[in-house]
């Protein structure tokens, strides 16, 4: 059985990220919601909308 910590370690290795082994369990817990959020983005149905470009869009809609 692969544990969450092992999966986290594999994910870090695949991305080339280095976290000291001594604090890995703590970081795995604290980063858990963020990683779940990143995974959830893959399921977001964006209907093909273009990514947001703040400077351009806000200027276009300016209502001073």
């Amino acid at each position, binding site marked *: 059985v692969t544990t969450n910590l092992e999966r986290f370690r594999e*994910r*870090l290795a695949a*991305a*080339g*990220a*280095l*976290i*000291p082994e001594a*604090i890995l369990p703590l*970081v795995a817990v*604290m*980063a858990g*919601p*963020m*990683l779940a*959020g*990143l995974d*959830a*983005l*893959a399921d*977001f149905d*964006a*209907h093909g*909308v*273009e*990514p*947001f470009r*703040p*400077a351009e*869009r*806000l*200027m276009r*809609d*300016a*209502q*001073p």
Partner: protein
Amino acid sequence: VTADPTTLSVAALGRALRTRALGAVEVADAFLARLAARGERVHAFATVTGDEALSAARAADAALARGDGGPLAGVPIAVKDNCAVRGVVRTNGSPACAGDPRAVADATVVARLRAAGAVILGTTHLQELALSPTGVNPALGTPANPWASDRMPGGSSSGSAAAVGAGLAAAAIGTDTGGSVRIPTSLCGLTGLKPTYGRVSRAGVTPLAWTLDHVGPIVRSAEDAALVLEAIAGDDPDDPTAARLPVPRYAADLERSLRGVCVGVLADVRRGRVDPEVGRLVEEAIAALGRAGAVVTEVAAPTLPHAMHALGAVFLPEADAALRPLLGERFDRVGVEAQILLELAKLVSARQYLAAGQVRARLYDELRAALATADVLALPTTPVPAPAVEAQVVRVGDGEESVVQVLASLTGPFNLTGLPALALPCGFTAAGLPASLQLVGRPFGEAALLAVGHAYQRETDWHTRRPPE
């Protein structure tokens, strides 16, 4: 008899200085004396520029005597230590930068404050590299929350909020990438504005996340926010994202009636994970707006639950891309928490970054639709009052969550969309901790947003409360 200058708002100080009831040197002396007496305990300032402040105060007195002082002539203001201030080392809240050379030029925001006659008192501490919203900085020290020293001040503009809250500056400049002006504003019982993306130049400010970064004031009232914004806003050839739009006379346009103004309440937030006391105080604030003539209606933004996922997917890789090259060999001297965050950035894929951009576009469209009906949106600034300094998790609703995630959960959506957002104190919990109402406006609609905030502060006195000495 004139009140102690350190207790006055920017607006009141300006009036006293223009009528010569107070002199600028007298005001600067009062703030510097208070800093000398209380500065160490509050730990708000990284650098105090006392001699330069007195020199600027003398110049302000001369200008005021000639009748040509700028709009902020003689008003003492502090600047977050990720903004360049000529002659000052910019630590960015990190020991890695504490040995850097002194800045040779001001950030645009600082230059504009000086041009308006402001007296720069110095630079304020922040969370390391502005990377997190708690305000806790183990390496360079954590500024004290003026309402409870065992509670987080909020961050990352922790020192700016602590300085204004403790009466060590009349106003302060903060930066806001996920809530870093509004979160410490909320936890310290102050008023703070994140303007529209591009409204205030970021030239000379250490970048954190290019598409999320904003600069804004932390002050004591919406009127003060209007006065400072008017001085610092505007186009800037040194910042390609600075908007080429005229700057309205925000302060002159504050006195508006709330009659007929529509306040939209986000339904998911209203029924979401918010501390019960904070939720009640924010509902009372919304009811106060209604009693003053506003029409309150519920609005929806179905994409809002995805906002924090998107914030992480944008914030981390942009911060990594901005900070690693900037730090270079100094990266090894960055604290562990900041290093870990930048390492975690490597876990964000290009696909996830782009999906986050799509979430932003959808969320923006939904909020713009809500703001077609409503003039402003109203929600809590932070779902919880100031957590204990050492807290890693906080209880919200029926469970515990990461304090970092919770603190930024209601501010981050307006960094993603760039919409202007104003934080206003709206009461105190039974433990005596401030709660904060957040109002959100239309793109570049700061004038209307500040007018609603000002109208709320005409009806209430939370912004006049001062922490115990």
